[in-house]
């Protein structure tokens, strides 16, 4: 992966390609086939193992992903937080715990899909692709967390500037060139996951129902708007 062309391809072309596919396909899918946007939950078919797999997985992944996003947007604040070793340890350990939670949940989900026949009946090829990619990605993440410690520090120092250089459309590969292979793989796999998202059940992340928190409790739809009560 030291070949400059490969580097160029993976870290300066693939991300744009992935984002392009992501935006185009999710928007088209949302407009042409809104019916297909669903969490496709299988809880109705099997309840118990669903709890032990899907709850740890979701709590874990939501925490870990939020961490990545925060580090992307607020690298300086993260570095400031890390300026005292104790706080660094706390952050790293928490992140690792949630990462492990994700792995455990994901393994549970995969095992459930393999062994519960009713759930298998509603599983398709895309689901397996998604699960395999997620598992690889999460395992890589945990591997990085353990063997290349203080990720919260070097993410802010190296990855964040790299990602921002992508946002500014002037990819600066200087930051990534020196990264360990596992980290590079983690990054490329992330692009791959973003690229396949629109074709899988992962789109349910995009329709997380935040307006519920502030809408009125009851919903009434009028065919014709009622006259304003004077």
């Amino acid at each position: 992966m030291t070949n400059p062309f490969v580097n160029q391809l993976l870290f300066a072309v693939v991300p744009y390609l992935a984002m392009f596919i992501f935006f185009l396909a999710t928007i088209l899918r949302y407009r042409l086939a809104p019916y297909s946007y669903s969490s496709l939950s299988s809880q109705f078919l099997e309840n118990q193992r669903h709890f032990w797999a899907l709850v740890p997985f979701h709590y874990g992944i939501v925490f870990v992903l939020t961490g990545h996003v925060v580090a992307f947007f607020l690298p300086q604040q993260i570095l400031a937080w890390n300026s005292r070793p104790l706080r660094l340890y706390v952050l790293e350990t928490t992140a690792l715990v949630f990462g492990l939670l994700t792995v455990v949940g994901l393994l549970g989900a995969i095992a459930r899909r393999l062994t519960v026949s009713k759930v298998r009946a509603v599983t398709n090829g895309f689901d397996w692709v998604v699960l395999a990619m997620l598992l690889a990605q999460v395992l890589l993440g945990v591997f990085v967390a353990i063997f290349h410690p203080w990720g919260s520090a070097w993410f802010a120092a190296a990855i964040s500037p790299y990602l921002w250089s992508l946002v500014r459309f002037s990819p600066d590969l200087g930051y990534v060139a020196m990264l360990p292979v596992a980290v590079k793989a983690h990054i490329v796999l992330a692009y791959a996951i973003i690229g396949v998202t629109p074709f899988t059940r992962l789109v349910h992340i995009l329709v997380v129902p935040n307006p519920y928190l502030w809408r009125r409790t009851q919903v009434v739809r009028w065919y014709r708007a009622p006259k304003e009560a004077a």
Partner: protein
Amino acid sequence: MDVRSQVAMVFHLDKCIGCHTCSIACKNIWTDRRGTEYMWWNNVETKPGTGFPTRWEDQEKYHGGWEVHDGQLQLRSTSKTKTIFNIYHNPSMPTMDDYYEPWTYDYQHLFNAPEGPDQPTARPISMVTGELIHIEAGPNWDDDLGGSPVYAENDPNLKGLSAEQRAQLSAVERLVFFYFPRICNHCLNPSCVASCPSGALYKRGEDGIVLVDQQRCRGWRMCVAACPYKKMFYNWNTGKSEKCILCYPRLETGQAPACFHSCVGRIRYLGVVLYDASRIEAVASSTDEKLVEAQRTLILDPHDPEVIAGARKNGIHESVLESAQRSPVYQFVKVWKIALPPHIEYRTMPMLFYVPPMSPVMSNQAEGTIHHNSEDLFHDIDESRVPLQFLANLFGAGHEGFVRYALRKQKAVRWYRRALTVGDVEMATAERMLREADCSPAEAEAIYRLTSLCTFDDRFVIPPMHREEAIQMLEDPLEHKQGAGFGFVSGPRRGT
């Protein structure tokens, strides 16, 4: 006052013969697709019995409906904050085991079986997995099993009955049951709508029909847990929730819903009621014993000039107003007060009402002779074979008064008609009964006519829906045949 119109319903339980024609009519039209096989938007239960899904009335288990906490109306199963944590796994979600696993039979085996010493049989296979299954429950599984120790004795409505009453319900020669047909109640305070994180569930402003916007449903399944009547169903194949749509495409073209239309016992009535939307929350927060009466006050008199003015102000069409004035539901619920809401204590303000069934002990046998008990006029109501307390748990939030009132009036009407036509009952006695049952001869006559002589047009007073401009109507209905039946023309395919 915020006057709105609602298509409301009455089921006259004394007339239901338990034929399940209604369920089949509905199934054939709406729920014969993959993922919906197990759904029965209309089902008919035997009471006492455990119902569908099993023991759905046990809210300790299912957490459906609303409860009042410090004067605040709250969903039992969820809340805005709880949704954030429960969206990954809904702790109150029933599973397929609470309903049943749909199956078909391996008919091919009848043709393809190799020659052998036995006749080949068609063994049951699951419609979910395609594997052979052992059938443990099915649609309508406890049909007619009144008195059964497995089903009847586990009815949640037996709460508060004395041991003697319970024993009487299942004594071999006296066991008793009646039918309880159920559809979505198209509630005024629907907990399904209130629980939907996506805002996909909604109540139609013009007629109050509660629908799921299939394009916006994301399968978060909060509604399935929140509906106390378990009339929200999760389509396990498409990952969307579905429910009774009160056959709105039929209503919009002036036809009665399929289950109403096909009802053999002619027990079903449908008509518009006007209600005051501004007071729903206040009424739904009333104490248990006030709920039935409070809900009646929500329903407004369509002849009252003030109500009419309010309706006009809200844009309710004259033809709908006129339809509300002829509504059979208004008569049963508000004027005669003999139709009662099911489980009003769930506080969703259901808009389907039931006339409770009669099961009086008219005579009993002692030492080989039949003794008529009827001289005592009403005492037999209290000694009904179905204990009043049981009916009260179903239709009066546990309070017998409403049920007793409805049954006494029904009985008085029968005696009055009997005095008129058969003549073996003193008219003076009949009139006294009417008086005691809070009923005038004219009212008795009207109840009799709408109960016994009712024509199609008496039972179904369908308002013009004024949705003529709706775009769906311009499309070819045949194109919808393979569609989901929700007003868009694409097959209900599972998203990836």
